[in-house]
């Protein structure tokens, strides 16, 4: 066990060193367009992975919440006169306070979405969150005076200035924020609140019978989802320097969902793995033409096909696949099982989960147990 632990420690150390060295040795394109971009997308996907994997809430509103934070940041931090649209709006706050307020507002909007959808489960929850996302997109698009219509806002600058002028610093900002969120959520998973979310995911009815106000906990989880998505939105606005309704349209919603599923809905780290993979494919597909076949035009087809293959072959995503392979190699029998909807069992729709395949993890994260 100590050997495995020290092995794990060395691997972690090597990864950290690589991540820190990366912007020093890689060209600007790889630092910004690939790495920083992936982290920003990864944080948005992580908000979905956390809600879905640990709370059973597959929210399609995460891109909208991120976009909301970006718009709030623009409205809070732009100075009216430099406003590209010539609108008189803009509070002219410094970037950090503007960002903090924007993230707080995204948290509040997430909680509001949570309150609206607190009694919806499964496909109804999916539809409701999608409706909220699309509704918000049209609000942004149609209220030209407030949101700048399809043009949006330009000239948004973060605390590190224009990313193009100082890629490593912006990269480190993204890395620090990603790491903080990732570690924070991993801590939360084994906290009272995190266990509550998982209880809700597995059996909301039992949670209510144990004395929990399930609706309130769902609001809290959606608030956390809004918080994380909001951070992604703020970083994204700083990264691009401008925002337009495209950052929260249906394409972006699907993008976040695809990234989360590619990485693995049960694995927080999967959000980042999925984001890197997705970004690489997206960037390189556009420059490849083989025998007259332009990958750029077929990008959506390719990603769509890849998505279908992943869902069919590896329902727990790339990380799920790797986890399974690792367990098979090391013969570590995983004690992690897929959660079965108890109401479905009661209704006789699925068999009681007594003997289940041992290769269907729902939870990843650390192994810190709750017992003594």
């Amino acid at each position, binding site marked *: 066990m100590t050997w495995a632990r020290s092995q794990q420690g060395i691997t972690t150390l090597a990864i950290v060193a690589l991540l820190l060295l990366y912007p020093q040795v890689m060209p600007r394109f790889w630092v910004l367009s690939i790495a920083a971009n992936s982290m920003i997308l990864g944080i948005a996907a992580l908000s979905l992975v956390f809600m879905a994997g640990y709370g059973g809430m597959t929210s399609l509103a995460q891109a909208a919440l991120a976009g909301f934070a970006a718009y709030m940041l623009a409205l809070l931090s732009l100075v009216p006169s430099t406003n590209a649209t010539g609108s008189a709006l803009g509070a002219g706050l410094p970037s950090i306070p503007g960002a903090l307020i924007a993230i707080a507002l995204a948290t509040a909007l997430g909680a509001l979405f949570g309150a609206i959808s607190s009694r919806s489960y499964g496909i109804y929850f999916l539809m409701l969150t999608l409706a909220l996302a699309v509704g918000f997109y049209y609000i942004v698009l149609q209220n030209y005076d407030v949101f700048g219509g399809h043009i949006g806002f330009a000239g948004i600058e973060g605390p590190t200035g224009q990313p193009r002028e100082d890629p490593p610093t912006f990269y480190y900002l993204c890395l620090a924020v990603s790491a903080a969120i990732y570690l924070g959520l991993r801590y939360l998973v084994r*906290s009272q609140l995190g266990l*509550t979310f998982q209880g809700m995911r597995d059996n909301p*009815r039992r*949670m209510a*019978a*144990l004395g929990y106000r399930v609706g309130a906990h769902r609001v809290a989880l959606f608030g956390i989802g809004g918080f994380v998505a909001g951070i992604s939105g703020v970083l994204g606005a700083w990264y691009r320097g401008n925002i337009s309704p495209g950052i929260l349209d249906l394409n972006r919603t699907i993008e976040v969902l695809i990234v989360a599923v590619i990485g693995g809905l049960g694995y927080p780290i999967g959000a980042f793995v999925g984001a890197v993979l997705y970004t690489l494919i997206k960037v390189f597909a556009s420059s490849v033409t083989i025998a007259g076949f332009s990958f750029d035009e077929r990008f959506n087809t390719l990603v769509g096909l890849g998505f279908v293959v992943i869902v069919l072959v590896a329902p727990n995503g790339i990380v799920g696949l790797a986890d399974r392979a690792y367990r098979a190699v090391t013969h570590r029998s995983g004690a992690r099982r897929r959660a079965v909807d108890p109401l479905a069992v009661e209704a006789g729709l699925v068999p009681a989960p007594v003997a289940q395949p041992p290769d269907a993890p729902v939870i990843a994260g650390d192994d810190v147990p709750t017992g003594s």
Partner: protein
Amino acid sequence: MAAGAPVPALRLQGVGRRFGALQALHDVSMEVAAGERRAILGPNGAGKTTLFNVVAGDFPPTSGSVELFGTDVTRLAPYARTRLGVCRTYQTSQLFMGLTVAQSLFLAIRGASGGRFSPLRPKPDDRSRVRAAEIAEAVGLAADLQTAVGSLSHGQQRQLEVGMALAGSPRLLMLDEPAAGLSRAERITLTDLIKRLPRDITVVIVEHDMDVALAVADRVTVMAEGTPLVEGDPEEIQSNRTVQDIYLGHAVGGRHG
């Protein structure tokens, strides 16, 4: 009831519950005294589980009222009733398949005791964690604290059901067929466990296994077709003609036999 008389743990008055055209409960009136052990018997479909659901608040009755410890809870949400001290088990296990035994018991303890929104991890010497280990011991799961609920045997899952109900520090404990699917040895352990519960816990048990039901019960209510027919102590019930006709006759070779 005369002033000064003890408040019953549970009082139902004219409770009815309808599912579409089906009248699952009809004019149920009964009282369970504090500290009593009450068995509810009746053939399949008699409405026993529906009665539990109405008392626990899974759905409201379509008529009548439910009182717990003197408080009218007819319209109260399930979580609020739990905080009044109602803990129950389910006929079909309602467990957290993705969590461990320790985590499940921990959630059950904290659900009743507060700190439900704490973003902190419990320390190893946390009182709730220590208590979770004690309860696991009491229901024979001490060796399985770190086992995923989904990997427990059926019998162990049934025991965890009971453990999670006990973990909520119940004043009224409702057990819905806790012995179903248990081995003989497990049934004896369960019977002992129920018999050893302190008398400040009121117990209502639905059980098809007569050995278990009659071993723990002070009083027995026999239900059929959504309504209580007979109430009495175990000897009276066993010798009652009506009961033999409507229930015992059916039960022999019935669902578990």
